[in-house]
């Protein structure tokens, strides 16, 4: 029962981020859809260069929380703070202007376009650079750059020019991840980024994630159902259940069982174990 496949991922430095100031804070986030309370007052703190794992059963509210942070949904109540300042993020564009990028569970890809276009859409390289909508596309520069990025993630694509709609689930996901990693400047949010990935691609994505804080000065929120992945790359695991945060822990093989209990509800919200904070 031991997964050995991803054993050789470099174990990340586990202690950074703890002393750093918070980059992103969510306070008392409430979001209701009709009769369903998807978020019932969530608090979350992400420190600089920290990798936080967000865990929880299906329907716990994880995707809703990150959609609220990235401006896809508006919160009914609550506040979002960046570097300690309250901000209002009402659209994905505003989130991007704040340096927040996300890979959503339902990918935002464009099946009629190629890999390069998908990677750069909304961030096109143009000549001259300052014209945005009416700038001349610098295809060569984009393609050169795209090739590098995908090589780094060791993604196999059938042909660099073929439409992304014709690629396999994993190939598509890899492009989405490459895109988000490329453009995040402050916070990167990944909603089950390895769900469709093979062993090799998973390893590369986890590898990339664990290098991001150091190399790009990024903070990361990772949603995953895979405990091993959380243990490998996260500095902290936050568990949600039924729209609330029910506890957090430093993920390690030792605390794994505790975390699982929190997820499935074996330990109530009140009995959150003090996890070495």
């Amino acid at each position, binding site marked *: 029962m031991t997964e050995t496949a991803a054993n050789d991922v470099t174990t990340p430095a586990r202690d950074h981020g703890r002393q750093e100031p918070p980059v992103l804070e969510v306070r008392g986030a409430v979001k209701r859809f009709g009769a369903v309370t998807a978020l019932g007052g969530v608090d979350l703190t992400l420190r600089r260069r920290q990798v936080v794992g967000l865990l929880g059963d299906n329907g716990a509210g994880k995707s809703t929380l990150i959609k609220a942070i990235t401006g896809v949904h508006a919160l009914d109540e609550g506040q979002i703070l960046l570097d300690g300042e309250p901000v209002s993020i009402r659209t994905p564009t505003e989130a991007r202007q704040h340096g927040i990028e996300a890979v959503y569970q339902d990918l935002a890809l464009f099946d*009629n376009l190629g890999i390069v276009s998908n990677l750069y*859409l909304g961030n096109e390289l143009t000549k001259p650079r300052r014209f945005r909508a*009416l700038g001349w596309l610098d295809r060569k520069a984009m393609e050169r750059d795209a090739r590098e990025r995908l090589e780094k993630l060791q993604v196999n694509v059938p042909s660099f020019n073929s439409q992304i709609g014709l690629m396999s689930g994993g190939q598509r996901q890899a492009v989405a991840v490459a895109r988000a990693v490329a453009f995040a400047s402050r916070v990167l949010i990944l909603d089950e980024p390895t769900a469709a990935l093979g062993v090799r691609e998973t390893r590369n994505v986890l590898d990339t994630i664990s290098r991001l804080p150091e190399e790009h000065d990024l903070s990361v929120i990772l949603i995953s159902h895979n405990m091993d992945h959380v243990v490998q790359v996260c500095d902290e695991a936050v568990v949600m259940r039924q729209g609330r945060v029910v506890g957090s822990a430093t993920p390690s093989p030792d605390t794994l069982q505790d975390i699982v209990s929190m997820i499935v509800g074996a330990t109530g919200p009140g009995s959150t174990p003090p996890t070495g904070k």
Partner: protein
Amino acid sequence: MTQTAALPPTPTPSSSQRHNQLLKATLALVRLGPLVMLGVLVLIMASVSPLFLTGRNLGNVGLEASVVAILALGQLLVIITAGIDLSQGSLIALTSVVGALWIRDLDIVSGWAVIPTMILAGGLAGAISGTLFVKGKIPHPFLPTLAMLMVARGLALLFSDGQPITGMPDAIRTLGSSRIGDVPVAVILVAALAVLIHVLLTRVTWGQWIYAIGANREGARRVGIPVDRVLISVYVLSGMAAGTAALVVSGQTNSAYPTAGNLMELSAIAAVIIGGASFFGGRGTVLGAIVGALILGVIQNGLNLLNVSAAWQYVALGTVVVIAVEMDVLRGYLESRLRIIRTEEKEA
């Protein structure tokens, strides 16, 4: 549960290779799709009417296709974003009436000043229906542009009192009626506009965005494309196309009249779709739209030369529309049979 059936045996290499060659030859032909259709039509027309291939008549074809072609260029942009613009025909009437009144009532001598007026009036109307659609959060542009169809026709009737207004300045008459050699000025205008739109679509960020919005509007929003503004810009351009088409129409007739352009948007839409664009958005090229307009123009002209009755013209047009789409379908099928990656669609 026990139904079984033998698979057909894999064809032997040699026969399959010959088969493939045949397929490939067919495909090479069909691949150019609308272009081949246009070629076939030209051949048919040329063989039944010796007048067809005269320079003068080809000029006529160009002139007759030019109005639909200009509309189609605007409609193409709208259709790439998975939209539709039903108001173009009425906008021809409204913009030309506005232009003519401007000339008559303001005693403007130089026609050049009217040209931007008419184009901008179309753009303004497009901006209104586009804004209604986007900012009014209406799920599909059919209804807002249908509303514009009605309102614009009504306003054209009101402004003109239902009467035609005769007398267009020379500049506009030149656009609509003059030829350089056998080539009508309107055709040159179409060519210039086609190049412009082609460049916008394929070389400029905005063009990419249009294709992206057509494929996945919500996704486009998430990656930070200013979707609303881009969509409105598309309807503005479609309205400006109608204003430009109005220039040609009123130049041809030396007048503005409130029933002009009736239902011409349907021809423009048909041209765009015959040219390989999709109502589901994200697909379509300038070349296709122009070829689609030419196909409609050639048919119309040929049937006129042959003096075919209106009844048969309807039947012939309907049949050709079906043949044109089926050619496109066949192309897709042959391509997948021959396992050739459709690289030409990726230019988007």
